[in-house]
């Protein structure tokens, strides 16, 4: 509709409202401003077209189906806007005709999303379908503009007297039905349609007891007791008499019964205090049915909708516990959740972490990644930790402008759709974009933190207490009581005591670690795990694979040390250079057989200009202790140095001299050590003297160099203290940029040298795990190399693979999972024009493509 046309329509509409509907509008305003009456009678539906119908209902609740009533009912249907609106909720795959052929709806409720109803295939009820099309636009505009107008009821209808309350027994057609909660009688006009209410059991109607239609074959989609076959009636009555709990009964019978409960709650409930009083037992009955028949999506939809509608008008103040963390997709957050959030917001109370998580996980556009679904417990706690860190007690939600409302769409076609149920005290807060965005980020953060842990569990489903799992468990989470790693920590703490570092042995370490490899030899992966485990207690380990160096041999020493508060878990760029410096420096220091405290101080001073964190400095100290504890024998040293190329030897010599000259003084002892080392390096010792001279002359304290200018205590005077600077150095200014470049250059050189200090690796650790024995050597496929071909052959054995298993396969072959998969698919595209695998978890394998790749 163009803008001009709609404007005209609106004008006409306003005119009509002014002329005809002023009283109604005034009344509406009155009701809008006074919340209390609305609250007390929340279920009062706007009833313009059906007023006459109800007026025709006599005091006993039994109406004569006069021609007038029929016409009115029809008109009511015609006047109602279409109920075949596209559902506001995302549609579930199996969309049945039910949603397309529901009874006429009132305007206010027409916006309600109908619950999807997978149901038996039937043609839509013709009466309902015909009434939906081609309303004159003017009239529609009137309806849209005019608010739902509850008019005073001059002659309020009385509740139906054919209702059998809870516990009342009835004998119907020879069957004794106990339990009540049904309508039994001969007159109960439907509220919204022609004829008797679908739920009314008319005992006069024939019942075929011999052939009860237990499977509901004769039932149609909108059953009514008066319309169904005698055989179906027999089956229905049997089910009623049998306790209404046979889980395998045809669902249409459950609906027939449900229609009655629905009518009692919605129609009688709003006019009869008696019916209102029994609401609790009716709701309990619906809830009971839901536990039995909730597996049927259609029934679940209606029953839950009814429970929600009843809950919103009479909320429980106590919000209770949040719903279980489920990862099932739902079209919108459950009402329990929305109400709880609204209650919290109304009370100005922070949202507890568990509710915040329930909220975020129930949003339809939240898709949690595998770590969250694989480790729900850890995810929940981690989310709570991060949430409290960020928001203290929790977010406080500002009440929104809309009331919390539930639209109800009756299952029974005999009932008009009531106005949305709402509670003016509660505001809708579950759609606040700002809060959602904040929570989503937190959920993503927690998921990312759990990635490594989750991946381990994916490969080792029973490995939750393995040391390798604990090692990657986020530090904020508690360690399971039965984790093998728990024995490690007391030992390490005991060894370390108050000392900053302590030398221990591999044997002791292995003896106190239950998950140690049975061979007693620590591999690279074991060392990473050990280092991460000790990290959790703030203890560092040297050697640490993450910071260079290989695994220690069985009889070698290791060093435990106390980590700094700000931990560094990967080496800084300067660390390699520092490590080489420490190694070489220790060689210099140990040349005379002992390492003096002064030498260590000198070593630290040599490291001072480097950009290292406090944690790294602590680690370097530990490394120095390690070198001292595992001194390389002269033979090993000579062998290692001999392995260097000539160019590298020269660089090593330069580095040694730089260290020696780092503090600006060169002692004869140092020179002697340098001479020894130079001879070992095969360098000419004569170079030392000239280089030393030059180094001492040009080594200037850089801006970030720590130079003792004065000692602690009160300043003696304002006169600048003399520094150690020689006159030669003050004569020129150092170019800081050049200095930085030089430093970077030496860092590079040191990094290259670092490899000579790597421990010899045990031979067994180098070889990758053997490929599975039953795949000795398959021919190479599609130009792939050996390992990728092996992976290919494994993958094509099955149709689909869980991601975790593919990761294990790749790990067995020493491949990176994603990289290998990418390589396979690229080869598949090149050879066969399509992908070999698709999906993320699980991966599905296309065997046609695989065949093409073979050729």
């Amino acid at each position, binding site marked *: *509709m163009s803008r001009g046309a709609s404007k005209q329509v609106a004008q006409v509409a306003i005119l009509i409202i002014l002329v005809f509907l002023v009283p109604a509008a005034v009344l509406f305003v009155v009701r809008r401003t006074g919340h209390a009456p609305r609250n007390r009678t929340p279920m009062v539906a706007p009833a313009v077209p059906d007023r006459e119908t109800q007026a025709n209902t006599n005091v006993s609740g039994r109406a004569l189906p006069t021609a007038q009533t029929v016409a009115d009912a029809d008109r009511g249907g015609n006047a109602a806007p*279409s109920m*075949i*609106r*596209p559902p506001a909720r*995302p*549609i579930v*795959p199996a*969309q*049945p*005709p039910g949603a*397309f052929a529901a009874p006429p709806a009132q305007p206010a409720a027409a916006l309600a999303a109908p619950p999807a109803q997978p149901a038996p*295939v039937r*043609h*839509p009820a013709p009466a309902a*379908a015909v009434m*939906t099309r081609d309303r004159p636009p003017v009239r529609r505009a009137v309806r849209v503009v005019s608010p739902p107008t509850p008019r005073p009821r001059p002659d309020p209808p009385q509740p139906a007297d054919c209702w059998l309350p809870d516990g009342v027994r009835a004998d119907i057609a020879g069957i004794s039905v106990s339990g009540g909660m049904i309508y039994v009688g001969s007159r109960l006009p439907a509220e919204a349609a022609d004829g008797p209410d679908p739920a009314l059991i008319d005992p006069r109607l024939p019942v075929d007891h011999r052939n009860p239609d237990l499977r509901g074959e004769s039932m149609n989609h909108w059953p009514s007791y008066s319309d169904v076959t005698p055989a179906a009636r027999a089956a229905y009555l049997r089910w009623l008499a049998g306790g209404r709990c046979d889980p395998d009964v045809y669902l249409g019978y459950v609906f027939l019964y449900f229609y009655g409960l629905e009518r009692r709650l919605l129609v009688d409930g709003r006019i009869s205090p008696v019916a209102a009083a029994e609401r609790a037992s009716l709701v309990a009955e619906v809830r009971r049915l839901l536990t039995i028949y909730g597996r049927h999506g259609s029934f679940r939809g209606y029953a839950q909708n009814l429970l929600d509608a009843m809950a919103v008008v009479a909320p429980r103040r106590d919000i209770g516990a949040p719903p279980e963390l489920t990862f099932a997709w739902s079209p919108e957050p459950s009402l329990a959740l929305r109400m709880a959030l609204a209650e919290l917001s109304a009370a100005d109370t922070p949202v507890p972490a568990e509710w915040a998580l329930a909220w975020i996980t129930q949003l339809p*556009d*939240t898709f949690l990644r595998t770590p969250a679904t694989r480790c729900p417990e850890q995810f929940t706690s981690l989310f709570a930790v991060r949430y409290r860190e960020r928001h203290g007690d929790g977010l406080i939600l500002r009440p929104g402008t809309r009331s919390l409302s539930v639209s109800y769409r009756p299952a029974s076609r005999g009932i008009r759709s009531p106005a949305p149920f709402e509670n003016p005290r509660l505001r809708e807060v579950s759609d606040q*974009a*700002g809060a*959602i*965005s904040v929570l*989503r980020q937190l959920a993503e953060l927690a998921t*990312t933190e759990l990635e490594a842990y989750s991946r*381990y569990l994916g490969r080792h489903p029973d490995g939750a207490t393995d040391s*390798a799992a604990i090692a*990657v468990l986020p530090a904020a989470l508690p360690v399971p009581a039965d984790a093998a790693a728990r024995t490690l920590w007391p030992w390490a703490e005991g060894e370390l005591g108050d000392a900053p570092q302590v030398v221990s042995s591999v044997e002791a370490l292995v003896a106190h670690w239950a998950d140690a490899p049975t061979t007693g030899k620590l591999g*690279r*992966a074991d*060392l990473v*795990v050990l280092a*991460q485990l000790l990290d959790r207690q703030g203890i560092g380990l040297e050697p640490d694979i*993450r910071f260079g160096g290989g695994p220690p041999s069985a009889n070698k020493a290791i060093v435990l040390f106390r980590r700094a508060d700000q931990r*560094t*878990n*990967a*080496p*800084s*760029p300067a*660390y390699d250079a520092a490590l080489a410096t420490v190694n070489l420096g220790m060689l210099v220091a140990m040349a005379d057989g002992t390492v003096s405290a002064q030498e260590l101080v000198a070593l630290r001073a040599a490291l001072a200009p480097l950009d290292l*964190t406090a*944690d790294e400095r602590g680690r370097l100290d530990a490394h120095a202790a390690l070198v001292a504890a595992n001194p390389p024998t002269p033979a090993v040293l000579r062998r290692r140095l001999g392995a260097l190329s000539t160019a590298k030897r020269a660089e090593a010599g330069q580095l040694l001299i730089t260290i020696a000259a780092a503090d600006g003084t060169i002692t004869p002892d140092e020179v002697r050590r340098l001479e020894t080392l130079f001879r070992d390096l095969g360098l000419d010792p004569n170079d030392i003297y000239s280089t030393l001279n030059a180094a001492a002359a040009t080594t200037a304290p850089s801006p970030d160099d720590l130079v003792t200018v004065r000692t602690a205590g009160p300043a003696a005077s304002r006169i600048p203290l003399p520094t150690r600077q020689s006159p030669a150095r003050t004569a020129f200014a150092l170019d800081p940029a050049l200095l930085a470049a030089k430093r970077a250059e030496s860092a590079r050189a040191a990094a290259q040298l670092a490899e000579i200090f790597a421990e010899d690796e045990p031979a067994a650790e180098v070889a990758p795990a053997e490929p599975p024995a039953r795949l000795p050597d398959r021919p190479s496929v599609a130009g792939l*190399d050996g390992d990728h071909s092996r992976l290919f052959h494994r993958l094509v054995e099955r149709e689909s693979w869980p991601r975790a298993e593919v990761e294990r396969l790749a790990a067995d072959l020493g*491949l*990176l*999972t*994603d*990289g*290998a*998969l*990418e*390589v396979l*698919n*690229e080869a598949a*595209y090149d050879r066969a024009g399509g*992908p070999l695998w*698709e*999906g*993320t978890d699980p991966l599905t394998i296309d065997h046609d493509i695989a065949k093409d790749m073979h050729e």
Partner: protein
Amino acid sequence: MSSPTPKPARLRPRDRDTIIAALRSGVVPRIGFQHIQVGRAAEIAAITDDVRRIADGGSAVRFVIGEYGAGKTFFLNLMRSVAAEHKLVTTAADLTPDRRLQAGGGQARALYSELMRNISTRSNPDGGALSSVVERFVTSATQEAAAQGTTPDSVIVRRLDVLSENVGGYDFAQVVAAYWRGHDTGNEQLKSDAVRWCRGEFSTRTDARAALGVRTIVDDNNFYDHLKLLARFCRLAGYSGLLICLDEMVNLYKLGHAGARRSNYEQVLRIVNDCLQGNVAGLGVYFGGTPELLMDTRRGLYSYEALRGRLAENGFAVDGLVDYSGPVLRLANLTPEDMYVLLERLRHVYASGEPARYLVPDEALTAFMNHCAERVGDAYFRTPRNTIKEFVNLLAVLAHNPGVEWRDLLRQVEVRPESNPDLEPFADGTDDRGPAGGSDELSSLRI
């Protein structure tokens, strides 16, 4: 009008399901475009040329301009799939108030993170392929190392040395090396930190240094430099290049603060200059936006003089003459004929490509269009999101209820006109689209 369109050769079940599911929820599908594209051959030829140029180490920049519902998002997604076929790595993100090209409060980094999350390759068309790209590089490095008898470490350092001259390149190389170290030593934490760094998820340098030993992070100021780095890295990893689609550029137009708008346009200019002058290798950037974003001389891209000069259209391309080589690519809205062909395609896709399983006859298509025209007028083909959605819904009901007559259902189809949310001003700091939702709204299906 009812002439049969040539049917695509093979319709994979996964494509079919993805298309149907996406259309039913009103978003553009991520795969299977060839099955539902209609027309627009010249535009496709133009973008295919672009992709070839990028794959050859060149660069490209385009502004895909169209009215609400003209199919910009669909076109950009199609572009991504074309690029993926040419072995490009592709990624896309919508600009939002929280995701901009230039900002001081982390919004630019947020855009970068979003781009990194959506990285796709031919094998991983659904996004999340950043680790695949990194691992492919590392895998090739290990293969080379095995062949040469050196360590993967040294191969990685050597091959990434070319990145060092770029801003952030040294640290990028360090991070990739850290990824390899993490794999080599079984240090999952290190691997995951490396990926997080690449995704721009470190918010402080201190954290990045503690986790990875690098001094820089991706931040608001260097995120475009990192995109350029990534483009080079993709080529090093064996892909042809990187294609970036930035949709909903109208969000820059809607920025209320003139200075903020201008600084964002400056960033656009920087990208345009780099791509048009060939300063970058293997990078293509596509922007999607509405005509007012481009042409409003007060607030649009034309308000920025330098951009106006570069984006001005060929003066000869008037009166039906077109020039597809300029940076601006205009998309027209759908026509009823396009709509008809599209419905045909949808019916075909729904029937899994088997004409025997068509759920409705040809006359139903015209009847459906008539019905929609009665309800919403021209909007049914101009902004066809709802039309398509209802049509697929109709097919779904027919599929599940074999006895139902399509004529009965047709009467019940309710189509409502759509409004263009782009024209609504921002509410107070809130974004009516959720952070995860609304990223690819189906504006049209015309190609």
